[in-house]
């Protein structure tokens, strides 16, 4: 990258910061999210804010964007002390934030969404005039989007572009991007990076929040690292630090990047899916004839950009969604269109995508959450009663075994961090000793340390002979863990890649990327495109 040139060019006005945050303190119930944090942003730079989940990155930026008020600390914009009481104050001062979850009105056009909440046009809405303005602005920054399109018709990547345009239209000089790549396909990520670079060249400053080391080192000029609410590194030049060093600053301990994976000892077929078809919530075909097998002792990865039928697949397999065609055999028992409970009885474990809305009951205790699949069986069940002593004992055992950090097992799980919550779910599912484990995005949103823990647990399960179907959007994770990789696109399987622990995957990343964007493997091989 050409970041070094940029950096050199900028040293001229080094002492003048666009944004300067001093001693920011922000407290939430139970956590000190920001503990006297200082942060400096130079003009025209892409400044990455790196940190584990829950390190306080988003909190700090929400303070800057006027969404939160800090308990202590000062913010200077272009050298002037400011106090924001709303996002509007922040945007008036030139600071705009693009959140992880977009705030758009699906039934309105791109232009309408961009104008939403502005005082102009005052009375008569001549949209076509504004369409042109939006188009021009988009062209200038490489944010191609049809201003007349309705938001619901657009892809997630395009919606993100609208959010950026919204901020640019409001005259933002500082753009905060909160984990912008989480929702994007690899090709879209490259497009976003181009846009960010263009903006930096035009003199705008970008704060790039992320917990992915790789992309941070590619895109940023400087990096600040937050750990547990404190800055562990402030504004280090990106080319003066290694990924390993960054990882250490992030988690405060050595992170092992390669997991020791044993060669697989594949057993008999556990899961056999034939011509599976299912509809999504809108009644459209989400799965269009999928067939695959998972053997005991192997991890089969399912790669794909979000929304290509992965959620529906996991739901159908776990019995939470009906299938419209095809067959699912679990240890030769047909579990298609049976109750969820039937699947559980047949030895199906399921780590759902949505930890808080599906995986756990937030206001119930850790105990109540871990017995979810055991409360019908002895010893926790005693006749029609639940044996509280047994239940609590069971919960305490899991707490110790899986390092769930919680004061007591009576604590409601809503107070747990993401990593701890995931450990609760994993503990519950693994302790059921499932024959088949469906793991849906098991490490999403977790910090580096927690990710490693979860991955280890999955590998242990595999080595113990479980069949695992791993659905993930993190290609790196899939390549690390899977023995075989299936690529799904619009409810169809584009191809299979086998992964040898020693020699690596049988296809390169670009091929996988092409499959993820809809080119079947045979076609790629036939045309020789790589």
């Amino acid at each position, binding site marked *: 990258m050409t970041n070094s040139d940029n950096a050199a060019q900028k040293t001229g006005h080094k002492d003048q910061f666009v944004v300067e945050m001093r001693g920011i303190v922000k407290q939430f*119930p*139970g956590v000190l999210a920001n503990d006297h944090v200082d942060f400096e942003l130079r003009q025209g730079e892409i400044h990455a804010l790196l940190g584990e989940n829950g390190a306080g990155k988003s909190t700090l930026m929400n303070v800057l964007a006027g969404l939160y008020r800090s308990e202590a600390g000062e913010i200077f914009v272009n050298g002037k002390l400011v106090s924001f009481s709303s996002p509007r104050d922040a945007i008036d001062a030139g600071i705009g934030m693009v959140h992880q979850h977009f705030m758009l009105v699906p039934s309105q056009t791109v232009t309408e969404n961009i104008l939403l909440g502005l005082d102009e046009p005052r009375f008569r809405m001549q949209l076509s005039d504004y369409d042109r303005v939006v188009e021009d602005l988009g062209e200038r920054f490489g944010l191609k989007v049809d201003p007349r399109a309705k938001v619901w018709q657009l892809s997630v990547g395009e919606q993100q572009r609208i959010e950026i345009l919204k901020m640019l239209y409001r005259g933002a000089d500082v753009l905060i991007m909160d984990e912008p790549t989480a929702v994007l396909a690899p090709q879209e990520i490259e497009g976003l990076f181009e846009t960010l670079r263009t903006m930096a060249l035009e003199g705008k400053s970008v704060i790039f929040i992320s917990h992915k080391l790789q992309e941070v080192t590619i895109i940023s000029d400087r990096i600040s690292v937050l750990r547990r609410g404190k800055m562990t590194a402030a504004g280090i030049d990106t080319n003066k630090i290694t990924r390993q060093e960054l990882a250490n600053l992030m988690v405060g301990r050595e992170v092992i990047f390669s997991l020791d994976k044993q060669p697989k000892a594949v057993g008999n077929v556990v899961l056999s899916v034939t011509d599976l078809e299912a509809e999504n919530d809108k009644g459209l075909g989400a799965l269009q004839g999928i067939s695959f097998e998972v053997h005991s002792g192997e991890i089969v990865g399912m790669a794909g950009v979000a929304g290509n039928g992965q959620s529906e697949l996991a739901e159908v397999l776990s*019995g*939470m969604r009906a299938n419209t065609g095809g067959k699912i055999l679990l240890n030769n028992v047909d579990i298609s269109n049976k109750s969820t409970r039937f699947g559980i009885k047949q030895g199906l474990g399921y780590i759902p995508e949505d930890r808080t809305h*599906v*995986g756990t*009951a937030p206001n119930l205790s850790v105990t109540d959450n871990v017995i979810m699949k055991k409360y019908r069986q002895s010893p926790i069940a005693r006749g029609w009663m*639940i044996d509280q002593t047994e239940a609590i004992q069971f919960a305490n055992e899991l707490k110790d075994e899986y390092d769930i950090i919680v004061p007591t097992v009576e604590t409601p799980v809503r107070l747990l961090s993401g990593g701890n919550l995931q450990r609760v779910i994993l503990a519950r599912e693994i302790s059921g000793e499932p024959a088949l484990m469906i793991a849906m995005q098991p490490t999403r949103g977790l910090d580096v340390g927690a990710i490693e823990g979860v991955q280890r647990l999955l590998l242990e399960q595999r080595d113990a002979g479980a069949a695992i179907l791993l659905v993930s959007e993190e290609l790196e994770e899939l390549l690390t863990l899977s023995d075989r990789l299936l690529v799904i696109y619009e409810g169809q399987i584009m191809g299979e890649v086998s992964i040898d622990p020693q020699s690596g995957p049988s296809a390169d990343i670009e091929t996988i990327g092409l499959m993820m964007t809809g080119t079947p493997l045979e076609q790629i091989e036939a045309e020789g495109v790589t």
Partner: protein
Amino acid sequence: MSETISSSSRERFPYKLRIEPWLHDPPKWYPYFISLVAIVAALVIGGILLALSGGDPFQSYAHIARASFGSLGVISDTIVKATPLILVGLACTIAFRMKLWNIGAEGQLFMGALGASAVVLIPLLPPATTPWIFIPAMILVGVLAGALWGFIPGFLKARWGINEIITTLMLNYIALALVNFFIFAVWSEGGFQMSPRFPKNAWLPRLADYAEQIPVFQGLTTHLGLLIGLGASVLVWFILYRSRWGYEIRLIGDNKEAARYAGINIYRNIILVMMVSGGLAGLAGVSEISGVVHRLQAGFSPGYGFTGIIIAWLAKLNPFAVVVVSVLFGALLLAGREIQPSGIPRMIQGIILVCLIASDFLLRYRVRIERKVQEA
């Protein structure tokens, strides 16, 4: 860096209120303390209103207290009022735990009363039947009738997802009309809007019945319904917190998707819980006509079923707290009869309610008064 772009320049008062969420879960006693503060605050507000309207607040309060707790006799009357409230409060508690908004306790209570009356008036059992059979039979039929009134909205909700708030509310009117039909037409005594008096065998035993053995009980109307209510509150607590079924109810109530994911049959539970809820409300109806009025008559319930909603809510869906709150409400109901103008206790009841509900805010946020810092 010295210039301040501050939004607030109108700082005359040197103190400001800061409202912020509780950073930790407040201590266990705190909710009770806040409830107590709310009640005291309500009494103070009520007192001011009384004084403004020319009354003597202290005398009025003393009178209310005397009217509901002043002697053994009125304490007993308070308990009589509290008895149906306990049962409907529990009916709402178990349904609300599962986030089923049963607004139909009133109708279910009427159905329970109707069912119990049917045993006496059809008659399903001859008047000379021993109370040992008569009363259980009335309870059984009454509970079943209430449960039926819960089954209908439960089934509609489970099968077609029809909003139970609307159906339970509407079924109230149907139940009322049904009861009216029977007391006006079928069982009317001499054209009055009431049925004939039940035979003594169909009365729930009262303390006064034992006055010969224990003279203190002379004239006390507290009846067996109280024990049924207390027993029911223990039972509901056990179901909710110690049984597998209660676990399912709590799980569905907290997160329906998680319950589905755990393989729990939500449809069956919707129907079952609505039936149990209806049955408990029906039991309140049985207890009221068999323990107090001894006949089926129009308007025997001054909206107990609706009060039950408020009670369940104020008791924070805790079956034991339901008993305490019910006694408080029973006292206010009784005072309403004793005090003139009768609107006063009702007004106080309203103020207490508003204060208690508003005090919930203090459980989630704390208010701090702090001196304004002089900004340099």
